[in-house]
Structure formats: structure tokens, C-alpha cells
């Protein structure tokens, strides 16, 4: 084996080693899928019963506004955040942050590191 090939092998093994370590860090972070529902899909008002004409019974009936409320499980905003949907500088946020199609560019980071930062921003990270 030529010396150059040997060094190349050594070098690529080190690169694989480093990237595997970094990849392990990223993969160890569980996904927090963006889960938000636009309010536009909320149910529209419907007329379930239409009255006809005046009558004494109707005139005696109280007017009732009733609400039916379905409970949800406990919230976990500390590690999941809450729907935000805003564009702004990251330093204006704190705690959990998850970005949509993040683009991170740095003059001192390698492209592998930039990709790792973007992956973590997309999965959700803590700015603290």
C-alpha cells in the first residue's frame, strides 16, 4: 500500500469517526413534529333547528348559551414549545425553539457543522 493511500485511509477513518460521533449527537435528539392546526379549519356555525312562529312556549323558554369543552392531556411547553409561526432573530427567543427549513451559515463552521446546526434547529433545540 502506498504511503498516500495509507494516510488517506487513516484520514477518512478519522473523518468517519468524527462524523459518526456528531451524527450520534443529532440522532439522539428526538423529533418534535410541528403540530399546529390553522384556525381556518375550525368548524363553521350551523343552524341545527330553526323556529317557525311566535308562541307562548317559546316566550317562556330561557335563552341559553352552552359550551362543551373537551379536555386535553397535560401540556409540555418547556420541551415542546408552543405554535409560534414567526420570523425573527433567534436571540429574541429563549428555551425551546424549532425552525422551519432553517438556513445556518457561519464563516468559522464547516459545512458538516452547518448541516448539523440546521438539523438540530429543524428538530428543535434549546437556546439558553
Amino acid at each position, binding site marked *: 500500500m502506498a504511503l498516500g493511500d495509507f494516510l488517506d485511509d487513516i484520514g477518512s477513518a478519522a473523518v468517519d469517526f468524527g462524523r459518526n460521533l456528531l451524527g450520534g449527537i443529532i440522532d439522539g435528539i428526538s423529533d418534535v413534529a410541528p403540530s399546529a392546526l390553522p384556525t381556518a379549519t375550525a368548524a363553521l356555525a350551523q343552524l341545527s333547528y330553526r323556529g317557525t312562529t311566535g308562541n307562548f312556549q317559546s316566550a317562556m323558554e330561557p335563552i341559553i*348559551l352552552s359550551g362543551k369543552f373537551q379536555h386535553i392531556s397535560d401540556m409540555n411547553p418547556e420541551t415542546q414549545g408552543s405554535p409560534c409561526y414567526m420570523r425573527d432573530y433567534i436571540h429574541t427567543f429563549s428555551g425551546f425553539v424549532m425552525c422551519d427549513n432553517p438556513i445556518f451559515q457561519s464563516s468559522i463552521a464547516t459545512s458538516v457543522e452547518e448541516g448539523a446546526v440546521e438539523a438540530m434547529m429543524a428538530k428543535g433545540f434549546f437556546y439558553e
Partner: protein
Amino acid sequence: MPSISVTLWSFDKKKNSTKLPASAGTEFTGEMKQSFTLTGLEIRFNLGSQLVAPTYNYAQIPSLRRYYFITDWYYDRGFWIAVMAVDVLASFKLEIGNSSQYVLRSYSRYTPGIIDTSYPTTGEVTRTSSQIAAGTFWGADVTQDTGLIVMGVIGNSSSSVGAVTYYALTMPAFRTFLNAMLSSISWANISITEISAELQKALINPTQYIVSCRWFPILASAFNQGAAVSAINLGWWSFTAPARVLNTVGSAWVSRQNEFSIPVHPQRVGRGDYLRLSPYSSYMLKFLPFGVFEIDSTELFEGDTLGILVDTNLMTGDSVLHLATKKFTDVQYNWDNSFLVVESQIGVPLPVGQVSADVANYQNALAAGVVAGAGDIARSFSKEKEPATKHHSGKF
């Protein structure tokens, strides 16, 4: 092996965090392995001769301008070797903070109205309702005879609207009027020597001059619209009864208004503002005789109170219901922005002795039927019939 200055910490942090150690750490000089990358490397440390596991789990290598997680330690011939992976979030915290991104989810800033589907419903349901008693809204109590009767009569009056004069009476006044009208026939002023009283009663039916009679749940004692009169002109005659004559359409218009505090989801406090929206919250309004309505939760989302306005025309009984919301800080409702407007008939028709029919309507219907029938007959005899699809292509 090249030696390198390394600062080590025992530091508790999440893997996906930009957090940096607050303390100064402990400086060591280690030896790099021959080949390494910036993202992952191994450094050998001389931590003494005793075989005690190091507690350091975080490192900074100033010459590489990066922070590292120590993912593992292994021991080799008297030296501890740290396996390190770069902590990109901490290393580039400043650059990350200065980048502008579109943030989907955040702990510190959020949009309360966006529904968060991260959390499933538990099956637990809370029902809350608020109500306004009918008497409170309308003013009159059905059981107490406090409502208002509006009667349309044909008679000699300068206050008529069209051919009909509308009188508003209390129930006792209405009884007084009936008593005056039907207790004797003397008001007809026909001598019994000409026509006997019994025959007069058979011949003269004063109720035929009553063309409409409706009861409204409006508090009669507080009704002060129109001009007060002491007699009702019916046909050719006049009967003593206290009433108010509604001589214009405007004087026959009444409005009733009230409001509900909007029931809210018990978990809405904090970040749960979106729980006021469907499908977590659903609202029904029962208001008879207008109907039972399922209200769009988005209409109630920003409001604190739901306002109800009913405009009623006492001549016809036609009523219009308006629903609008406002915040506590708003002075009044903007009814022009009502999200629901529904018509209905509030007046309760009271039968009178004369069976009346809407002759004009019958005539119109009859005429329409005749015209349509004649058209069909004409077409059936036409030699060149139009295609069936063109029969209804006229303008509406």
C-alpha cells in the same frame, strides 16, 4: 502526538442546547491522536496513576474554537483517553442567535390562537352554560299577563298605517275592549223598535274589523310608544279602552338587548387560549323561536361577552335577531358586524272571532297558476315546441 490545551467540566446540559458552562472549568494539557477531525476526536490525558473514572463530560478546546461533549472515556496504558464530539450549538451560539429564522414552535414566544395538536384529548368533557330568563330578556312574564297585545283594526282613524290602525293594549285593557264590544249591542245605536237586539247581534259582527291580533312578550306597563288614546275606533263605532295607537312604523318598532358572559374552556389559562376554538370548544345557543344555533367558535374567540339584539315590529311581529361579541373593554356592540342575523316571528297570533283569509295572496297565487297553466296549454298546442331545458331559462 501534538499536545493541546483543554478545559474540562462536569457539566449537565441537554444535547440540543446552546448552553455554555458558567464556571471556569479545569485546564489540562492533553495529547491529540495523530489524525482527527473538528467534529470528533480523541485526546489522551494524564490524570494520575490511580484508576479512577474521570467525571469530566464537557470540554473546550480554545485553539480549535469549539466546545465538545465527552461521549466516552477509555483507559490505555496508564492514560485516560476522552472521546469527544463537537457541540455545534454551543460552539456557534453567537452565530445561531444572530440568524433570522422562521420559528414554528417556541417556549418563550407563541401565538395563542394557533391550535396545537400535540396534545390529544382525554375524553373528559366539561359543560358550562349561562342563561337569561325569558322575562329578563323580553320584559314580560307569560304567566302574569304582563305582555303587550297589538291589534290591527279597520276603523275611522287618522292614525292608520295604510288601512289598518294598530293599537297596543295591556291584557286587562284588551278584556275591557272585548267586554265593551260584546256585552251588549247598544253601541250600534240602532233602535230595537227597528231591529231587535238579538237580530242586531246576529247581523253585526264587530270582530270582522279586527284584521290582526298578536301578543308580544313586551312589558306592557313600560311600553310608552305611540300616542295614548282612551278609545278604539272599530268599523263605524268607538269603544272605550286605554291603548296606545301606533301611527307610524317607527312607533311600532321595539328593540331588546342583553348579553352573555361567554363560557370558556377550563384549560384555557396560560397557553391554552386556542382551546376556545373548535374542536376543543363548541357552543350552542338556544333562543326560541329563532332556533337553536351551533355558533362558530372563532366568532367567540376574541370576545368576552355575546350580545343579543332583537328588533321587533309590533305591527307584523317580524323580528330580527343579531348576535355580536365584544371585549370587556369595548363600550358597546358593533351590530353592523353581527356574525349571525336571523329572522323569525315573535308575535303570538291570538285568534279572533272572524276567520280571516289573505285574499290578496290567494288571488295572486290563483293568477300565477292560471298564467302558468295557460302557458303550458299554449305550449302543448304549439307546433314548434322549445326544448324542455329552455323552459326555465328566463330571467328571474
